[in-house]
């Protein structure tokens, strides 16, 4: 395992569009962060993962160090996931970053109202996108000190 970033933490990416997943992972890969990312494809799955339900009933490890959350998703959308996390006493300490194509004011207002920790608009330009995701990954994985209960790589192994 590459130890360039040092202490590795796991990241939960909630994204329904496989192309966006690919682009995001590609961006994170540039900094060797991609294999720390667990991808779920809709909101329901994300909540199952966080609450250890369904197919994630027996998963190992603690909370992710950050949840990267798309807003527009089938079944349970990003805003609902955000609300559920922030309404749960256990989960509310997990940092949530919304990654969205939308810059619409209502989206921004709603997310911040429900306690989102950051809101990143996915740039259309790929170079910009790469830059944004890269900064995001580095910030949350390396610079930010996560809340205590979140699982470290070593422990989850």
């Amino acid at each position, binding site marked *: 395992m590459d130890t360039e970033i040092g202490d590795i933490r796991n990241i939960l990416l909630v994204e329904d569009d496989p192309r*966006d997943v690919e682009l995001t992972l590609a961006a994170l890969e540039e900094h060797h962060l991609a294999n720390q990312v667990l991808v779920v494809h809709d909101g329901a799955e994300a909540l199952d993962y966080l609450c250890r339900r369904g197919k994630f009933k027996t998963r190992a490890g603690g909370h992710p160090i950050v949840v990267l959350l798309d*807003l527009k998703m089938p079944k349970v959308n990003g805003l609902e996931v955000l609300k559920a996390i922030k309404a749960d006493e256990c989960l509310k300490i997990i940092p949530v970053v919304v990654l969205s194509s939308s*810059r619409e004011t209502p989206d921004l207002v709603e997310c911040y109202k429900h306690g989102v920790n950051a809101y990143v608009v996915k740039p259309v330009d790929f170079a910009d996108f790469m830059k944004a995701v890269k900064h995001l990954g580095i910030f949350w994985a390396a610079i930010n000190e996560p809340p205590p209960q979140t699982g470290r790589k070593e422990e989850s192994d």
Partner: protein
Amino acid sequence: MDAGENRLPRKAGRPDCVHSGPTCGGGYLLLLVFFLLGAGIVISGWLYCRRQEKQYIAGMAQQLSIIAELKARDLAQYRKERLADGSVFCQNASFAALARRFLEKPDDADAQGQLEAWFEECRPQYDQVRLLDAQGVSRLSLPAGLPAVSDPVARELAGVLRSGRVSFQDFYRSEQDRRVHLGVLAPILDEKNARQPLGVLFLRIDPDSWLYPFIKRWPGASRTAETLLVRREGNEAVFLNELRFQTNTALNLRAPLDRVALPAVQAALGREGFMEGVDYRGEPVLAALQVIPDSPWSLVARMDVAEALGPIREEGWRVAAMIGALLFGAGACVGLVWWQHRVRFYREKARTTEALQGSEVRYRRLFEAAQDGILILEAGSGIIVDVNPFLIGLLGYSRESFLGKKLWELGFFKDIVGNQARFAELQRKKYIRYEDKPLETSDGRRIDVEFVSNVYPCGEEEVIHCNIREITDLKRAEKKILKLNAELEEQVSARTAELQAACAELESFSYSVSHDLRAPLRHVMGFADMLQKDAGPSLSEKSLSQLKIIHEAAERMGELIDDLLAFSRAGRVELQKTGVNLDELVRETLGDFQAETKARNIAWQIQPLPPVWADHNLLRQVLANLISNAVKFTGARAGAKIEIGCAPVTNGETVVFVRDNGAGFDPRYAHKLFGVFQRLHSAVEFEGTGIGLANVRRIIGRHGGRTWAEGAVGGGATFYFSIPNQNGGNHGH
């Protein structure tokens, strides 16, 4: 006029009893004034008279005292002179010798002749002169042949013989002639025989000859004044002279000493000075008392009060007459005032009555001609006392069916004042108003009315005034309006729902655009870039160029989407108007362009701008769009000039312009400038999406302002926008 109409005007008769009060009050007041005035006049007159009387009496007292004093002095002098007469004989040796010669030799004619000559000398003063011997026997007299002396004289004689001194024989009544006399007894002392009295010479005085007239004489004229002489005898005062108003009083009239009101008694008791008393006749008198020294006599100078105070009494009458005149005058004045008061009062009353009647006529007309139904009730009983013709016509019942009835007895009012309880409520509240209780007319129609009832005082009683206005048409119109309003409301809510649906659709469209259109673009660009990165070295020059075109096209598409979303947002966000400092806003906006224009030489001309009432953020977008355009279209000019200023304020709005000397535009296409995606220049010439000015127009339009532009190809362009002022903006666009 029938009974009903007579009830109301009863008020006109009322003021009589009300007004009599003030009149009586004024009368009593005037009477009181008169009595006070009268009392003042009488008291001051009386006091004046008393003072005058006192002064006058003092004057009289002085006058009487002077008279008494003078008389007393004269009387004392008279007595002294008489005693001196006696002394002449008593101490005359030759007379004594002559008397002895005669007494020893009674037939000595010479001696008798000489004695008679002496006697004759005394005659003017004395009516009898006689010589008595030591035994008291009369020996010689003038006139001759007199009988023996009276008893009082004989008694006195013994004393004189014993003492050997001249003595005064006081008034006595002679038992011989029954007349009053007095006299002087002079002893004749014997020089040779140790001055033993030889005999006594008796000089008798007839008081009528001088003394009584002297006493009687009063200085000045008087009807009642007199002086009288008294002496004390035991417990009695004896009057010694004849009185003015009573005869035969000398030595006969006596008064007991306990009659102290009698001046004579006071004088006999030895008092002196002035007194007021009652005289022997029982008349009130003023008197001055004077004791005559060396004598038993006292003198009284008296005058009837009636005469003494005559002048002052007259004065009193004059004063009384004057008081009477003054009283009459005061009475007349008070009476005049009272009369004028009455006249004024009646005139006023007449005027009031007239005015009241005029008012009554006016209000009666109003009542008769009113186009509302009017009922007048007695507030206490609820009995209808008057009803106006309009109400009779409105309900179709006869006048008689109203009058004298109680309101709740009338069937058609059952909904309004249906029972006594409601009537009591009206009495308590003094006002009620209904318009939801229709009345039924005699022909069975139901009419909507507005029923207003007021209770108000009328004289001492209370009256209820009911106003009944037919509002059937009004109600109908009201119902129609309500129906129309309801329909309108329905339409509005339908339209609102449509609008809301449209808005929601727009919202979801924008949302979709944001999310769904951007994502594919990002993918196009992302994968094209990844392709170039991964397969770049193996691709041909042409393929690379084509990849670049894909990238650029996607990029442009992204810009278009962003601008379109911004435009859409500008139309949807809520305006938050505040006072905006335009100078500051322009400075801020220019700051954003600093990096872009640093390398260029642009001459900025920024005029001072007024404050405006607008949404700060949206206005900033407007300025940014216009400045961005100006910067962009002057890009080809060497001496670029951009001017920002404001046109003179007109029509309640502020007009701001941004002028440049750039590429300009063809004025023929000016109307297309502000359309969405409308461009007058090719993308090669000037980049842009064609959204900026459409956004400007939309934002200014939402502020109620206007946007327009002037320009010429190659001659620069001026873009104007107006913002209505806060209070005066008419929405002209």
